[in-house]
């Protein structure tokens, strides 16, 4: 008879936390997709053996403290300016693997110009764009990516097309630019989606190695606190409502 103690042995270990995540507990709400996104980026960096060559740029937003959790060289940028800071870093250190990690309030609102121009200049960086359709950190206000009809604290009756316009599909926009090599939209809510996202992250870092220009990975995520749902319900809501507007899959490259 095999007991649990027989199974829980070092030689049988198949999954444990990567060393590139620090021992700090994530500051994110229970069930937030940021944690999984952090993990797979750090796992890819570890597996590719590029720890010493990787420099990340943290945004403003919930993930502003990403530099506390990712145990690689990190820089924090002003709101929305992560692609501009990453441009500087990658030009000074052309052999480094430079990535930005940004939310939708950072990348798709205040940082739209920096994002588009960095993409257009074909900077050799990876941009991770976590899209949850809301400003999570400041209390669930409406973001440019908020869906039509979606309730937020600044659109309590739902986003109204007449007053507030359409959600911005920044990933499709940057796919039009010649400086961008690889554009994909993924999610991290199921084991299968996480595995696919990890493959995309790996491909993006390989593009940096081959100096191919910008790789842009959008990760559609949940914000259960901002959406006022349980984590499991928010993932279901995301599948039903976010994915029709933000369909998953490779867009370019």
């Amino acid at each position, binding site marked *: 008879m095999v007991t649990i103690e027989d*199974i829980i042995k070092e030689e049988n270990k198949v999954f444990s936390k990567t060393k590139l995540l620090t021992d700090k507990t994530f500051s*994110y709400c*229970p069930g937030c997709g940021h*944690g*999984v996104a952090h993990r797979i980026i750090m796992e890819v960096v570890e597996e590719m053996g590029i720890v010493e060559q990787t420099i990340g740029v943290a945004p403003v937003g919930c993930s502003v403290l990403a530099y506390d959790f990712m145990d690689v060289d990190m820089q924090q940028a002003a709101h929305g300016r992560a692609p501009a800071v990453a441009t500087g870093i990658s030009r000074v250190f052309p052999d480094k693997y430079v990535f930005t990690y940004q939310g939708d309030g950072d990348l798709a609102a205040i940082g739209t110009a920096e994002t588009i121009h960095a993409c257009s200049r074909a900077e050799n960086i990876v941009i991770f764009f976590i899209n949850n359709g809301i400003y999570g950190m400041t209390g669930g206000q409406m973001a440019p990516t908020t869906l039509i009809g979606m309730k937020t604290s600044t659109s309590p009756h739902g986003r109204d097309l007449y007053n507030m316009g359409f959600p911005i599909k920044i990933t499709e926009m940057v796919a039009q630019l010649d400086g961008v090599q690889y554009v994909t939209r993924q999610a991290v809510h199921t084991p299968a989606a996480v595995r696919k996202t990890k493959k995309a992250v790996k491909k993006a870092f390989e593009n940096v190695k081959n100096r191919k220009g910008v790789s842009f990975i959008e990760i559609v995520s949940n914000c259960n606190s901002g959406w006022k749902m349980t984590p499991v319900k928010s993932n279901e809501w995301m599948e039903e409502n976010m994915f029709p507007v933000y369909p998953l899959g490779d867009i370019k490259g």
Partner: protein
Amino acid sequence: MAKIRGAVVVDVERCKGCVICVNACPTNVLNMSKEVNGKGYSYSFMENPEACTGCMSCSMVCPDVVITVYRMKVG
């Protein structure tokens, strides 16, 4: 016939009780505890350890990376 048995270890103090792992488990091994941890969160535990195959679905989706997975061949 060789059978695959698995087991998971949850870092109880870091678990935030989001229930995503319970939902992701294909063999219904995990459930939420009645007790709470130091932060007041109910945490995930193996309610039905015999059914665990060590497939890592729970650890793949765990947002706080608190699950360690073990797997071995039996018989």
